[in-house]
């Protein structure tokens, strides 16, 4: 079982965004705030620190939308964002999480 149902994936094109950020309180609010103010739903979020670097990596799963390139530029401008990369929906990061997300 995958986190994203394959049929669903075909129906809505998804993008996966990988963001390296400084690891401190508030950074997540800055990033997701840019999405929420546009009523742009974030379908999935994963975030963990990256080794001992003081950085965290945020993975976002979002629906394809014409606003995405602009969103990425806005995220890139945040002071605590180091890098941002966009991947296609076939990226595996969210794949094996499905069993944590089954309805009971």
């Amino acid at each position, binding site marked *: 079982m995958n986190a994203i149902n394959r049929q669903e994936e075909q129906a809505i094109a998804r993008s996966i965004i990988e963001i390296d950020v400084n690891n401190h*309180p*508030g950074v997540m*609010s*800055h990033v997701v*705030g840019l999405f929420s*103010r546009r009523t742009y739903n974030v379908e999935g979020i994963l975030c963990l620190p990256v080794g001992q670097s003081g950085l965290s990596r945020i993975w976002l799963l979002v629906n394809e939308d014409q606003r995405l*390139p*602009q969103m990425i*530029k*806005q995220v*890139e*401008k*945040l*002071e605590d964002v180091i890098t941002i990369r966009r991947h296609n929906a076939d990226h595996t990061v969210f794949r094996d999480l499905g069993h944590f997300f089954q309805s009971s």
Partner: protein
Amino acid sequence: MSETLTGAQMTVRLLERQGIRIVTGYPGGAILPIYDALGQSTVIRHVLARHEQGAGFIAQGMARVSGLPAVCLASSGPGATNLLTAIADAKLDSIPLVAITGQVPRAMIGTDAFQEVDTYGLTIPITKHNFLVTSAEELLEVIPRAFQIAASGRPGPVLIDIPKDVQTQAIEISHWPEPGGALPAPATITELTEQAAALINSAARPLLYLGGGVIHSGASAAAVELAEKSSLPTVMTLMALGAMPVDHPLSMGMLGMHGARYTNLALDECDLLIAIGARFDDRATGKVAQFCPNAKIIHIDIDPAELDKIKTAFIGIQSDVQDALNKLLPAVKQNSRKNWVDRIQTLKNQFPMQLPDADNPRSHFGLIRTVAACLDDSAIITTDVGQHQMWVAQAYPLRRPRQWLTSGGLGTMGFGVPAAIGAAIAEPERTVVCFTGDGSILMNIQELVTAAEENVNVKIILMNNASLGLVHQQQTLFYGERLFASQFKAMPDFIKIAQGCGIQAIDLDQASNPCATLMEAISRQGPCLIHASIDATQKVYPMVPPGAANRDMIGA
């Protein structure tokens, strides 16, 4: 040699080291340690506003005339929430502002302590960046960085929230950080400016479109030089007024919603639009799909997120405007563009900006023109928000960058008076004139007391139409003349209010020779309110109705 200082003392010292000489604000419990330290400073003068929003706009006035970050202070809770509007206003107009707020002690954060609000959370979407400081040590990094962020690239507001116990925490300091300043912008890519120059050289009907970024970058002279070298008719946004003198032969004044008809019609005809430090705001473009329908676009902006945001650029250049112009200028050929310049002149003759009744000082345009006639270009002009703002934008002969301070992006009523006070404090040798309305002035009327206390050279021209003119206009034109909540039934006696606040006041309605009375009031040193009744049925024309294309203007 090391010294032991509290977080509050460090904050003041770091501000001193930043070169800050004037701060403005309003005290309260959670910021009292900083106020205590500020009181000991022999270097920094504190201007006490009468409301935190007033303090925010006073700081904005200082920043807008100088181009340098200005500082305002407020306490936690209601102090911080009162600041929000001024911070949001600075964000939308890209004004460098450093707001410092007190916060409840760290251990009490999150307990709904007295006067606790999540200032950090509240200011995320309205600042360029914000900080919640968690130790005195951190101030050494955060304060210079706040100034650096506020001033670098596209300027903007930065908020620093400092818990009270961080302010009182004492630490030993042996080394001070360098003050934070604007970082150099990345160098312009020469290849792109060369392509842009080639496009300009080969265009038949190019127009220059200047935005507030030209002012922020200090690039007005270079922009005018480019216009002159290549004979580029030039439009300005509300934020860019003053970048090119309005009476320059190439100036077509403001574009968009309340621009002249010939200006908007010319935009329809251009084959190349050179947008510099402008962001294609909806008040400028009208219906975007029909904005400059025949033009390729060259877009120069320091903020990469502005490129392709509203209109896709044929050539997008992320660059400091001044740097890009420096590279562009030598590559652009001298060109007289006789046909195109003649065409613009023809349009201008056919559809000129009309300022009816401009000779009558008791009319709105006449009043604005008479005020202008009393002043030279060294004066600073601020406005509030409404019809009066647009009329001043249309009719005042602005000729100098940073001469014009107005709330463009947020359109905040209440901006004018405190911004004028800030401007006058920052540049006391100048006369500052604030055009306001009877609605707007009441939004920060308490700052008249600040004006009196500081004895600033501010002349407030109150254009009183006993109504919320712009709302009145919209209801008349677009809501079937159903006037609702836009006419004041009770009117204060503004003359008495001003006098009661300790500033001089005159009523032009009572003056037998309004021009002479105005001249005398403006020439007299110190703050003065000048009251003038105007006709409530006057409209700001021409006008692009909401949602329409710029060519479909109504009125005049």
